[in-house]
């Protein structure tokens, strides 16, 4: 459907205007040799005509009249098809791009049902409160015409307590979110008797956001919803919408536990569009340093905006968003008193402010907006001319979704991906065809993950006694109930399993990693006032004392952080630097689920052809079975056998992170202006991890200094993380990385080294990882922004026998560690290819990290370790 061209100049007439003109200018000005960077790909996606269908059979004349009153005399084909399937009682998922009239696909059949029978009830689930608000505005347009037939309200954390009883009884269309359903509605279902008795439709908007741990939770919440509905005699039908992912129908079916039909045909029209890949040119081939992607994104956005083209810039972090707002405000400054033409938009702005920005975008009053993924979802901001993606969003689906924000009904639009120096970005920029040829990610969930399932079983038992013959998850329900009984949560009677605990189980289960526990930002420049919020996990890195907090291009100095009251007090200031928090991560192994020697590579692509000799998972496994029948790492008694062998492991760990300081980084030059120390509370998470133990002998034999060896291991860890996210198809944020000491040896080193404990057979159980690798704010590495590698190096702790940990960045884990354990050899082999094939001389951000961070020998050591691993494998 798309044509490819190498240079825009062939396509675009001389003196072109609008988007084409801007693209030609970018091509001309930023032209560099392909080897060094520049535009690496231009894809032209031709215009598409609308496909219409007449109003479907069964559409109430009243609704038809209202549609006609709005100038809608026919539907797009996908809307008519959705109406037809919904009327047949089928569950369905509609997969079409942004701004294709998706909402009407569920609103029309449901409003039709409400008009036909006033007792009918429907529940809409949105992943965010903002989306529910957006939909409420849309539905209120219908209320004007439908009157009492449509009684729609949002029900979420913002709903005032005194309004709730009325909503519970009156509303026939409730807009809420999975979290509220989980903690507020299901455990109090008796108050929602009328809703559940008549619940006919459940809408899942933005289905693709329910992946991973969030999706696994939601699937269980929906299991609970279905059994509560069944208790009241109803069986709701599910209607979902999704952005383009590889398996929408499969994901919908896994989430709802029902067969789901899929509508992929998009009847909405679209104008011509260009998709451009841009790689900032290399400025220092020795260090593999490219021009800052932030500066390049700014220049590209400026080129479009100075032609009056409405542009959205997507950044991957809040910090990057604010830095770009600052830049673009400089470029498009307005006189004092005149409204800004560039705004920022991200989570943490107050709802009213967000609504105002959305409106100004729709109505064309803003020239540009810089946003995080907060604007990736279907919030109505109209269609813009251009989307600039400052760095690869992490997944193919997200990339298409963000690019989809640009797209006029008439006139061309453009999306430009500006690659950062992160390994995945570089891979995509250098292999753009890989991007265009590949289907977007699969939305994968695992609702039967025991941790998650057990938590929801508790909630389910709290809601209604569990019966053993119920259909709830793929495991033996009676066995799970007995387990919960042993823990004192359930009690068995002739009627089933009852909840017998004082606690409220839903409160103990968060559906997302981000807690709802927000910090409020209070500006004390004059009269104190709240200007925004920061969620708990980012508060410690963004609003610690002396931080420069940025919001909507303004700078604030954080005077004081009140941790207990969850408030940060700030004063507006003019700052020529911003701050970047430094955090340390410490890992302790609580339980090793499985451990084995690193086995020969299993794929044919690897160098070792002997690989096929055995299944990797079984080959050379050093594993013992203790009397309980649980696999454990071997007792330390046979450390001689262990010492020679690198091992792969997975199990449960405790991760402690602490923000210990910050750096001041100058705007523009990215110089490090100094640093400060902080003492903030430590955060603790229990999760699962995969780790690689490098035996002391292996490292000792390498011809490098101990500092060099350990820096190289740090570089290797970084490369492993990048490859792991690719193998798992997850976001880099989902997988934490850290290095720690393998404990047993530490015992040996210890002055009090008790041989007794070594023979106790505890294995890794009490392993305490020591100070781990230095990790910057995980969403945003300052080194990615910097043109020059930082000159100062952080002190590297000394390890004797290091463990490289890749841990699930979610409490309880999402189940990444077991697949990594299985794919261990593939992981190592791909990491070797990544590092070996990287053109840099001695480490760069695209492989093991810049030499400034991992040392001159970092790349060499990382490769040497990998080669040693394969020697060990082959021996």
């Amino acid at each position, binding site marked *: 459907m798309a044509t490819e061209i190498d240079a825009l100049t062939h396509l675009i007439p001389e003196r072109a205007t609008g988007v084409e003109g801007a693209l030609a200018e970018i091509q001309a000005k930023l032209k560099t040799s392909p080897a060094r960077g520049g535009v690496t790909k231009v894809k032209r996606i031709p215009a598409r005509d609308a496909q219409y269908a007449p109003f479907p059979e069964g559409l109430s004349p009243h609704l038809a009249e209202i549609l006609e009153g709005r100038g809608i005399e026919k539907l797009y084909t996908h809307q008519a098809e959705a109406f037809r399937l919904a009327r047949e009682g089928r569950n369905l998922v509609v997969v079409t791009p942004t701004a294709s009239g998706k909402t009407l696909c569920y609103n029309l059949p449901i409003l039709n049902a409400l008009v036909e029978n006033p007792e009918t009830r429907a529940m809409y689930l949105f992943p965010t409160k903002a989306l529910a608000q957006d939909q409420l505005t849309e539905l209120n347009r219908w209320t004007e015409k439908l009157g009492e037939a449509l009684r729609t309200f949002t029900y979420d954390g913002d709903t005032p307590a005194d309004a709730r009883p009325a909503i519970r009884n009156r509303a026939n269309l409730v807009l809420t979110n999975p979290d509220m359903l989980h903690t507020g509605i299901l455990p109090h*279902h008796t108050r929602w008797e009328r809703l559940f008795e008549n619940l006919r439709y459940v809408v899942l908007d933005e289905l693709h956001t329910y992946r991973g741990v969030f999706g696994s939770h939601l699937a269980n919440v929906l299991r609970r919803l279905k059994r509560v509905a069944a208790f009241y005699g109803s069986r709701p039908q599910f209607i979902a919408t999704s952005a383009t992912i590889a398996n929408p129908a499969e994901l919908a079916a896994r989430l709802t536990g029902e067969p789901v039909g899929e509508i992929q045909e998009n009847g909405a029209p679209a104008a011509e569009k260009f998709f451009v890949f841009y790689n900032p040119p290399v400025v220092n081939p020795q260090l593999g340093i490219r021009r800052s992607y932030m500066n390049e994104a700014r220049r590209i956005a400026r080129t479009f905006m100075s032609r009056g083209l409405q542009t959205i810039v997507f950044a991957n972090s809040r910090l990057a968003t604010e830095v770009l707002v600052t830049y673009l405000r400089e470029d498009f400054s307005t006189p004092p008193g005149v409204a800004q033409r560039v705004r920022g938009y991200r989570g943490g702005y107050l709802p009213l402010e967000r609504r105002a920005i959305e409106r100004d975008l729709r109505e064309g009053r803003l020239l540009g907006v810089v946003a995080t993924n907060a604007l990736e979802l279907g919030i109505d901001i109209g269609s813009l001319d251009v989307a600039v993606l400052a760095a690869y969003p992490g997944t193919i689906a997200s990339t298409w979704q963000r690019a989809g924000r640009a797209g006029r009904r008439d006139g061309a639009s453009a999306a430009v991906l500006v690659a950062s120096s992160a390994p995945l970005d570089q891979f995509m920029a250098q292999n753009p065809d890989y991007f265009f040829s590949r289907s977007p990610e699969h939305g994968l969930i695992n609702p039967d993950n025991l941790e998650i399932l057990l938590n929801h079983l508790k909630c389910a038992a709290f809601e209604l006694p569990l019966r053993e013959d119920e259909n709830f998850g793929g495991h033996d329900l009676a066995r799970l109930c007995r387990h919960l009984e042993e823990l004192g949560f359930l009690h068995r009677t002739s009627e089933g399993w009852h909840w017998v605990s004082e606690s409220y189980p839903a409160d103990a289960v968060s559906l997302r990693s981000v807690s709802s526990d927000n910090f409020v930002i209070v500006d004390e420049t004059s009269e104190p006032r709240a200007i925004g919020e920061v969620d708990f996990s980012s508060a410690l890195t963004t609003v610690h004392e002396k931080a420069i907090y940025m919001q909507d291009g303004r700078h604030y100095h954080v005077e004081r952080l009140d941790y207990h009251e969850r408030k940060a007090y700030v004063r507006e200031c003019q700052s020529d630097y911003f701050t970047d928090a430094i955090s340390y991560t410490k890992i302790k192994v609580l339980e090793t689920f499985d451990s084995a020697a690193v086995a020969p590579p299993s794929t044919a692509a690897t160098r070792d052809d002997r690989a096929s000799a055995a299944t990797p998972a079984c080959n050379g496994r050093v594993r013992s079975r203790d009397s309980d029948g649980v696999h454990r790492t071997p007792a330390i008694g046979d450390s001689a056998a262990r010492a020679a062998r690198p091992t792969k492991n997975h199990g449960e760990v405790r991760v402690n992170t602490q923000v210990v300081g910050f750096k001041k980084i100058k705007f523009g030059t990215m110089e490090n202006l100094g640093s400060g120390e902080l003492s903030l509370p430590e955060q603790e998470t229990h999760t699962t991890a995969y780790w690689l133990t490098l035996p002391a002998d292996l490292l000792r034999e390498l011809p490098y200094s101990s500092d060099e060896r350990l820096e190289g291991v740090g570089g290797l860890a970084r490369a492993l993380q990048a490859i792991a996210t690719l193998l798992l198809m997850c976001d880099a944020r989902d997988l934490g990385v850290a290095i720690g000491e393998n404990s047993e040896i530490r015992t040996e080193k210890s002055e009090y080294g008790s041989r007794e404990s070594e023979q106790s057979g505890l294995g890794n159980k009490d392993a305490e990882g020591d100070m781990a690798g230095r990790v910057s704010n995980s969403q945003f590495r300052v080194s990615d922004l910097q043109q020059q590698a930082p000159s100062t190096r952080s002190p590297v702790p000394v390890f004797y026998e290091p463990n490289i940990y890749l841990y699930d960045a979610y409490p309880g884990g999402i*189940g990444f560690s077991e*697949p990594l354990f299985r794919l261990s050899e593939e992981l190592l082999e791909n990491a070797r290819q990544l590092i070996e094939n990287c053109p840099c001389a001695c480490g760069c951000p695209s492989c093991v990290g810049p030499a400034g961070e991992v040392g001159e020998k970092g790349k060499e050591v990382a490769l040497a370790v990998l080669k040693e691993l394969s020697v060990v494998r082959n021996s």
Partner: protein
Amino acid sequence: MPKPTRQTMSLEEKLRLIKNAAAKSAREQVLDRELAYLARRAQRRKQLPADRAPRGIEEYVEGRTEQNDFGEFFVARQALPFGRPYGSLRIGDIAGASLEALNIFLRPARNGTGSLSLPAPADLPEPSRLAFLDTETTGLAGGTGTVAFLIGVATVEAGRFVVRQFFLRDYPEEKAVLAALAEVLGRAEGLVTFNGKTFDVPLLETRYTLARMKLPFPRLVHLDMLHPARQMWKLRLESCALADLERQVLDIRREGDVAGSEIPRIYFDYLRSGDARSLAQVFYHNALDVLSLAALAVVLARLIQGEERLASAAHSSLDLYSLSRIFRRAGNSEKSFAAREQALASGLPASVETRALWDQATDHKRRRRHAQAVEIWTEIIRREPARAGRPPSSPALSDGRAPLAIHAYEELAIHFEHRVRDPRQALAFTEEALECLRRSPHPSSLLHRFNRRRQRLERKTGL
């Protein structure tokens, strides 16, 4: 996300691992509480032979198994003769009490701002038509997972005060218990609880809905004693929990009672072990709660009717002032005024006295006895430490508002500006008030009001 993980371990093994981990973290949190409880329980158990086999509720609580359409259930029924003393009362006082005085708590508060057009709520019926109710539950969390395992309900029947306690020997008996309770409530016209509006009744409503049974509550007039008791005794008691009211107001000492927070665990232990030994204490606790609730209603009604002797002089003045506020809230300014006069005459603590004086001045003003009002306002300014900018003395009374002296200044300024028509005097009071406001932080609306007044007065006085 990875593909669903291949089962490398059996389900049994995984569960074991998860159990160990879960036990570790969960235990840490509740460890202290559990240990404290276990220690207490062990102490109690020492007195009993260790090898005694678990025995059911019938062994420990006098009661019987009954049956209705929904099955069997256990009920303990105690008929208390009217002559039996209960603290300072006799049981018969409950049956014979005239509780109509409590009707003022069934009315919405009258703030003097016009009458509400809501229909008048029904009055409390005769004591013989009342049910006094209290539940023991498996927790305070609320929601569908909390069960009322013991429901105590007391009614007056044929010369006796009858306390029935319906008990769930196990969860499947719930429907039968709910049906039996509905039968008792069906004979009543009114319901009296302590915190029942927020806790017991919504919880029981949830249970009835879950049992798919009709709610017995909508037709009952419901008096929740929590707020009336707080209005009456908050000034002199630190806590207005039922147990404290019982000790301080009714003069009752419980023996061998169990702490409310231990009750869910005792029931869960019973479910697991089948041993009902510790439950006897819970029955005792619940029966006393129901009786005290009824006795408290009687005492409060008497206080309002002016029949009850007040304990001591110090208590009586505070109680009188509380009564005055109850009357005031109900819109009965005559009685309110009289009770307050009496309270002031017998002496109040300084902080409460100022507040009482303020109320008194407001009443005077309403009755156009301006001279008396001015006298009191002046007195308030004299005694209140607002001049020094110190914070208000009694947080319970100030409700976070500005010191009463500031309000007294405002009243005086209004009085001299509009009634006496002496703008100079009014301005003098305004300036003094502003001086006080400058010294300590107060709501900006107040400052704004005084500033406007000053501007206007300056114009009038030609300054």
